[in-house]
């Protein structure tokens, strides 16, 4: 089966969902895949969530917009309410359990992985890296690619003034991957 | 007795009859422009941006490359020409309807950007080509086909003094108003036009000259009375002179 993955990544504005969407797609490109990334705006912007859609595929990509994805990265509660029902049966849901009650996870229908993103990021010294923890878990759980192309892409996706944070972000990606490996 | 030719047609002006009415000042303005293109040696580098109005056919009378702009847009088209060919001498020639009404935004912004172009503005207080309708510069009380009882301050607002507005913009380098109603004023007009053209040649930015002109046909006056009207009615409202001259300061920008 050819490699294919689509994902909606959603959270509050400021949680860095657009950044990890970019990073995922960029790393996919570096890993030889076709990729699309689209920030979803318009009516979708309202209701407390910022979100983007990423498609990774060995084949040519048709639609860059996906209503029912095969995977989710969910960083806050309103995003869970909005997108979990749309997730395909048997799909993967990476849930930020620091901010979301795992009782709300639809564990019977889809595969849910609880990742305490904010707590792990706090421990690593910066809450703002919660997004990287989530992405690390996502890469590990999907196996779409190794973590290395993602780490290697940090320098291209982060603007130069944040390059000093690359080691810390790498740690966060690794920490998220460890959680998913144990799940 | 040998003949001596003391008055000839400028090289840049084509030898053909114009379509203008008797007593119209466009011919005088065309000649001044043509003389200066010759005297300043820029005719071969000149690109005229023609406008819409009686002077739309200026490109048939001047021996220079030309592009025809939509109504009022000549300063925008000239901006594009200059962006494409910085090495060329670019100028517009516009009437009062074209420049002060529909083209107000284009001329103000071109001036304010300090575009290195020259604008020749012919103000005869009326839309000539379309048959004498009210223009933004029509004087209070002046009758036109769209203000048959005379322009009224309450209804139509006051005539716009363009040169003063242009002079007030930071980007403009030279702004002056002259009149074509007598020889003395025509000589002054040429001096101002020379300065506006010089402004571009020296890469000092936007040069603007307003020329008060007669439209005997639409004013319903004979040419002599039309000239008199410029003196008695127009000049008192549109004073002559230089309103901005930043050439010696190296331009406005």
């Amino acid at each position, binding site marked *: 089966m050819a490699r294919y993955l689509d994902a909606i990544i959603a959270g509050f504005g400021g949680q860095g969902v657009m950044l990890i969407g*970019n990073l995922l*797609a*960029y790393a996919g*490109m570096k890993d030889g895949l*076709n*990729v*699309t*990334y*689209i*920030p*979803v*705006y*318009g*009516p*979708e912007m309202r209701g407390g969530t910022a979100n983007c859609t990423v498609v990774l595929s060995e084949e*040519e*990509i*048709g*639609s*860059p*917009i*996906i*209503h029912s994805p095969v995977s989710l990265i969910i960083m806050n509660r309103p995003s869970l309410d909005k997108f979990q029902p749309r997730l395909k049966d048997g799909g993967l849901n990476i849930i930020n359990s620091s901010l979301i009650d795992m009782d709300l996870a639809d564990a019977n229908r889809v595969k849910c992985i609880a990742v305490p993103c904010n707590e792990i990021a706090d421990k690593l010294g910066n809450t703002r890296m919660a997004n990287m923890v989530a992405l690390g878990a996502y890469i590990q759980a999907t196996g779409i690619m190794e973590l290395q192309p993602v780490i290697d892409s940090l320098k291209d996706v982060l603007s130069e003034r944040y390059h000093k944070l690359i080691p810390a972000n790498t740690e966060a990606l690794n920490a998220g991957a460890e959680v998913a490996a144990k799940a | 007795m040998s003949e001596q030719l003391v008055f000839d047609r400028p090289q840049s002006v084509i030898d053909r009859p114009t379509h203008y009415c008797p007593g119209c000042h466009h011919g005088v303005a065309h000649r001044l422009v043509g003389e200066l293109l010759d005297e300043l040696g820029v*005719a*071969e*580098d*000149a*690109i005229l*941006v*023609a406008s819409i109005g009686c002077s*739309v056919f200026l*490109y048939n009378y001047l*021996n*220079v*490359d*030309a*592009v*025809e*702009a*939509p109504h009022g*847009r000549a300063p*925008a*088209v*000239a*901006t*594009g*020409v*200059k*962006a*494409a*060919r910085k090495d*060329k*001498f670019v100028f517009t020639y516009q009437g009062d309807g074209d420049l002060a009404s529909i083209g107000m*935004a*284009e001329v*103000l*912004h071109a001036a304010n*950007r300090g575009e290195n172009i020259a604008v020749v503005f012919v103000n005869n207080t009326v839309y000539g080509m379309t048959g004498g309708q009210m223009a933004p510069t029509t004087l209070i009380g002046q009758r036109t086909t769209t203000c048959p009882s005379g322009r009224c301050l309450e209804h139509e607002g006051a005539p716009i003094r363009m040169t003063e507005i242009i002079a007030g913009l930071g980007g403009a380098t030279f702004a002056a108003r002259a009149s074509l109603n007598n020889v003395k004023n025509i000589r002054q007009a040429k001096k101002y036009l020379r300065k506006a053209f010089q402004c571009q040649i020296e890469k000092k930015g936007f040069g603007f000259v307003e020329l008060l002109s007669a439209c005997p046909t639409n004013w319903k006056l004979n040419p002599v009375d039309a000239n008199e009207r410029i003196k008695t009615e127009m000049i008192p409202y549109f004073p002559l002179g230089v309103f901005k001259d930043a050439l010696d300061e190296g331009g406005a920008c």
Partner: protein
Amino acid sequence: MSKQPERIFVKGNEAVVRGALAARCKCFFGYPITPQNEIPELMSSEMPKSGGEFVQAESEVAAANMLLGAGACGIRAMTSSSSPGISLKQEAISYMAGSNTPAVIVNMNRGGPGLGDIGPAQGDYYQSTRGGGHGDYRLLVLAPATGQEAYDLTIKSFDLAYKYRNPVMILGDAILGQMKEAITPWQPEGIDDEAGRDWALSGAKDREKRLIKSLYLEEGALAGQNKNLQKKYEDMQSYVEYEEFETEDAELVVCAYGSIGRIAKSAVRNLRKQGHKVGLFRPITLYPFPSDALLALAKQGKKFLTIEHNLGQMVDDVRLAIRTVADSDFAPIYPGNLPIPEDIEGPVLEWLEGK
């Protein structure tokens, strides 16, 4: 054409800019409007680097007229906007068409009518393919569906503009403009920067003066100009591009262009998996329209369903193309809604059930 192997990850708006720079565009005239702002933003920093000129105009009206001025000088020049702004550019576009002035205009179509929204839509199909302004004229209209096509077709647009001395429109939408995708940049060779040497304005030195105009008052002159334009539009007909996908054994052919075309491709794949004999016909040139290719499909007995992100515009051209042998049904995706493959799968399944 030397293909650089390195891919870049850029928005469609940036792909347009990169394509224009590769095509040695030397003047850009812009005005802000969502969802195309990355184009003027990037041009403002990139144009000076390549020795070109960037001007932020006071309005779309002015920007298009600046384009007219630069095009009259035979310089590769461009402007971009989105629907409401494109309406304002129509004045100068008509003048450019009337005066045979080459130029490239990009429209990242957003929802309308009026101010509409800032999301994707295809409501400007008629405006783009029927001229858009006053008078009887046509633009070459290219409709990229992907970032790569945005890059490739932008390069091509400059060549076409100069080949035909005609304005060319790149018609994208908010999806194309805002989506990031991996594209492979390449550098075209053999660009003729002096393509306008026989007609462009440069100052009448050692030659007759030249005039770029669209006013023809002398008896018979305007008729002559219109005849010349018609001849040009006939010549353009030889330049068509389109994509056929899974049409060979298809019973039903979906006709869709631009972003909807690529979304329809996903729908066709999904429907094929369910065993439905469905194909896709995607015009890449909207003017000239690939009528002959459509007619050939119609003659094979295929049925047609046109789906657009509007209330039905391109469907007219599909019907005209196949009118002697077939007709096309139509399903709208309403501007204001974000299109998804299900918007295409639904009407197709309905059509299959109802046949």
